[in-house]
């Protein structure tokens, strides 16, 4: 086995996913089969190969060395629409369960 039940539980914890017992069992089996398959990459000699994180399109700002735009303050015209789409919000804020105990 490439992966243990503890690995599955740890990864679910990292990914903030509540999994049922059946899901834990299913993912254990399926991830094991996928991870066994991707071991295939070990056949490749990649010594001296630079990892490729992305393709850099010509002129794209993200890869041009100065990816950040000027930090200009501007009013948000759609704040009402944005907040209206939230599961729970006030007129100015998203609401979440209490995170600070006092």
């Amino acid at each position, binding site marked *: 086995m490439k992966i243990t039940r503890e690995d599955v539980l740890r990864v679910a914890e990292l990914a903030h*996913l509540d999994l049922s017992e059946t899901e834990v069992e299913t993912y254990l089996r399926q991830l094991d089969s996928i991870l066994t398959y991707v071991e*295939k990459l070990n056949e490749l000699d990649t010594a001296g190969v630079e990892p*490729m994180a*992305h*393709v850099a399109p010509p002129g794209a700002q993200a890869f041009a060395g100065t990816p950040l735009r000027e930090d200009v303050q501007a009013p948000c015209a759609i704040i009402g629409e944005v907040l209206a*789409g939230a*599961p729970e919000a006030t007129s100015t804020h998203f609401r979440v*369960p209490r*995170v600070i105990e006092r």
Partner: protein
Amino acid sequence: MFHVELMPTANPHSNGSDWTIASVRQALSAKRISARELATDFLARIEKRNPELNAYLALSPERALAQADRMDALIARKETLPPLAGLPLAVKDVLSTRGVPTTCGSRILAGYRPAYDATAVERLERAGAMILGKTNCDEFAMGGSNENSAYGPVRNPVALDRVPGGSSGGSAAAVAAGLAVAALGTDTGGSIRQPGSFCGIPGMMPTYGRVSRYGLIAFASSLDRVGPFARNVRDAATVLSVMAGRDPRDSTSADVPVADYAGGLDEPVRGMRIGVPTDYFGVGLDPQVRERVEAGIALLERLGCRRVPLSMPHTGYAVATYYLIATAEASSNLARYDGVRYGVRVPGATLVEMYRKTRGSGFGAEVKRRIMLGTYALSAGYYDAYYLKAQKARALIARDFAQAFERVDAIVTPTSPVPAFRLGERVADPLAMYLADIYTVTGSLAGVPGISVPAGKTPEGLPVGLQIFGPAFGEAQVLRLAHAFEQSGGAGD
């Protein structure tokens, strides 16, 4: 999911599949039909046919009809019509549409209505397209059969017991069934090309960076692309020209001039060198698909193209590479669905419990599987073995393409090793489903453009797609070759 009261109108295009961008324009200019009548006709046909196909998740009649009225006003004033005037267009449900439900085929975004439009949508609408609605897809574009949608599978209009392919299955089915004249899809590992192949219509993945992704809900950011489906290559070229080009709101969009792709379609293909990599014709390729693709290559040779045998030795590593990189990026991109800012929330006593419950019940099985795989591949102790190794393998796959394009103008392969399979036939084995992406994920990793163009049918009547890759920003030559193929009877009868 939706209901609109519409009166169908009489017109000669009763099944909707005869329209093209040019014929819509001519009919509108000659006042044989108004844009409002055309929109109404399409919306009515969708109402009638969609319960069977499930291609659309939501309709946007107000938006389509308002646009129709703008076009009709232009016609009444005898003004010049924009390039896509009155084009009935479908939009994959991973692209943001202001005020129109956008779910990504996921329960977790049920009820979400974006506050802004994706750039691709905005540009097409500005060019006169009428947005009919949002099309079904695999959840967050993860899948190759459209069976991973939280809102049920799409049926292939060519064979109703078959899948339409995925993840852009609803867009492909809508165009193939005459429920839209063109559609937007997205392609991360084959999600435009493979459903185009399964449904028997052209579908194009442009070069990485060619079309803005602003407003595209991200799956794997180093791979995601927006592209068109259409009834023919010319229409796909026209739609692509309109939406391509740099967008200041997408820092990964290329600053490369956009050609008039449709304008260059009739230039000759004689003398073009077409590479045929043996690595795409090995074990696992359905003999009936192989036969159609070989016949397609022979047709291109008769058109004066020169066949060049190629070896692309890292092809067999592409699926493993793709599924590590795409899932790693997905695990990061999908971290934003936490029940705070949009979509669905499942309450919890603490913030983390709310996250876990929301994500655990909001995401479907395939999305959770990929988040798990990607999180694992990125986690401490495994990063080098999986993610970094995959990035190095990606460089080798991209090198295969770069070397090939020193010798050829285009690479021709099957789009998918198999034709459309039956609904439910493959859901139990995720790895087997991934392996079927073998011919499409290569070009995704390399960042090059690719199209799937109809290459006839199997004896059972199932469409087969011929895939044509070009070098980065070589859309014009890819489209020209696909057009020549189509116009020379590449699709058979």
